[in-house]
């Protein structure tokens, strides 16, 4: 497993995946509190914006956290899907999987090393965003509870994990990048459709993000342990399915 992980981690660095995730996340960590703070000012600058700005309440730390969550989830989800969807299918298609799997490398290690390396990349990116976001929120608004902020970012990682695991499953199911991309975005759409149902939303990523926001702001509210359990369950189920399917596949 360590050999496979070493290769995957090297690939994350060599193919600039780590750099891309780090830069994108750092950018949103920095700009989210800035955008929250200066959105009313920016609206004032557009023609007729003066009138609109009058009805916008003064920005608060809640806006900064909301902006951070919105940006990170949108772009994080896209990056997780884009980076996960080619991980297995491309190796099958190009023939690199056949080269290494004819050697004493288990198929389980081959599959699990991929989301593990992706997790390290997202962990580093999220850590950069968290530090930047915390610092700018502190500068522009007020101090956030450190524990709550850490919890928010931890829950964000779980959120990214759900999409990355589904993308890896899609990649395992397919041989071409196009079909694995279509399957991965199919999974995303399915998840979005399920979350339209209010009861399901509370038990999926929607519930997870609501809880993350409350924790960061030190607000009360019900903890969403159910949503966390379902999301972690989804990750485990998607990766287990990937391993079981891959072990039976012809390479």
């Amino acid at each position, binding site marked *: 497993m360590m*050999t496979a992980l070493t290769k995957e981690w090297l690939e994350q660095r060599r193919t600039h995946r780590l750099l891309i995730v780090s830069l994108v996340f750092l950018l949103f960590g920095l700009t989210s509190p800035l955008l929250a703070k200066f959105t009313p000012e920016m609206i004032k600058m557009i023609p007729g914006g003066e009138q609109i700005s009058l009805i916008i309440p003064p920005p608060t730390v809640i806006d900064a956290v909301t902006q951070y969550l919105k940006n990170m989830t949108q772009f994080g989800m896209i990056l997780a899907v884009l980076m996960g969807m080619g991980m297995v299918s491309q190796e099958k298609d190009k023939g690199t999987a056949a080269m290494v799997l*004819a050697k004493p490398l288990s198929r389980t290690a081959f599959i699990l090393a991929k989301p593990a390396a992706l997790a390290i990349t997202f962990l580093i990116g999220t850590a950069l965003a968290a530090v930047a976001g915390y610092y700018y929120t502190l500068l522009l608004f007020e101090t956030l509870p450190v524990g709550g902020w850490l919890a928010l970012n931890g829950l964000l990682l779980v959120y990214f994990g759900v999409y990355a695991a589904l993308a890896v499953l899609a990649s395992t199911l397919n041989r071409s990048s196009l079909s694995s991309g279509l399957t991965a975005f199919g999974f995303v759409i399915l998840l979005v459709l399920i979350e339209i149902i209010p009861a399901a939303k509370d038990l999926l990523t929607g519930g997870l993000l609501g809880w993350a926001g409350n924790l960061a702001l030190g607000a009360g509210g019900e903890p969403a342990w159910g949503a966390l359990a379902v999301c972690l369950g989804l990750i485990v189920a998607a990766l287990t399915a990937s391993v079981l399917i891959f072990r039976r596949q012809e390479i």
Partner: protein
Amino acid sequence: MNAIQIERLTKSFGKFRALNGLSLTVEAGTVFGFLGPNGAGKTTTLRILTGLAHADGGQAWVDGLEVGKSAEIPSRIGYLPEDPAFYAWMTGIEALDNLCQIHRIANPERKRRVSELLELAGLTEAGKRRVGGYSRGMKQRLGLAQALIHRPQVLLLDEPASALDPAGRKEVLSLIEGLRGQCTVFMSTHILADVERICDTVAIIDHGQLIINAQRDALITRYAIPTLALEVDGVDQLAGLAAEVRQMTWSKAVEDDGRRLTVTVNDLATAQRELLKLAVAAGLVVTHYEQVKPSLEDVFLRIVENGKEARPS
């Protein structure tokens, strides 16, 4: 002891039957040529032996271990696919180092082995460059190097010289030939000259079935068609001699290309005596006279074209 044993292997892709009860054995220590026309089932057989594909039926053993049941097989085999693929972002050194790690070869042995293999593949200079920039021939040589990383007992090669230029092919074939006795080489190819040059045993398959499995020389002798060739100075008179030879009972077929007369015969001993006599009697000056040795290509074509007729009973 058999290095590879295959019994009644079957494999279908939809309605296409790639392997149709293939059975064969490969003796340990030999360089085994696995021949067949395109689509005969050669690559499918190799992929099943490596565990990358699964057979629908039948059994196979590699180095005494049953394919599909023993996790030990990948440690015993070296595999070179027809189109070896590497991570384009790795250098040649990193590619071999990564595969050494999979085989749990620790440093300093790992470093030494990588360096040895790069030299063997003629890639010492290119070792620090990314594999993505390698030519197909360089990838093929790197592919052969990676197959040898752990000094395997059985080497499975799928068209090992197909992408190489004549010089590269010669080097690779010499390298494979040098492995005789050290490990068993099971080599699929469509380049019959390569098989003729280095393989001591040959199997020919077609439509997923074994047609013949024999020692190379025995095979050539068994399927040899007695043929005589004669070259003369008087080119103008060759047509007359050809017409005369066609009337002979010992003559089966006569080919006259203007300079050379090639005669396929029924009775070799009589033909050897009579052909020369006829040429001299016709007043021709014979410059070259030989019994043509059939090539493996002739044998292959004959066996495959005859199909079932040539199969062993």
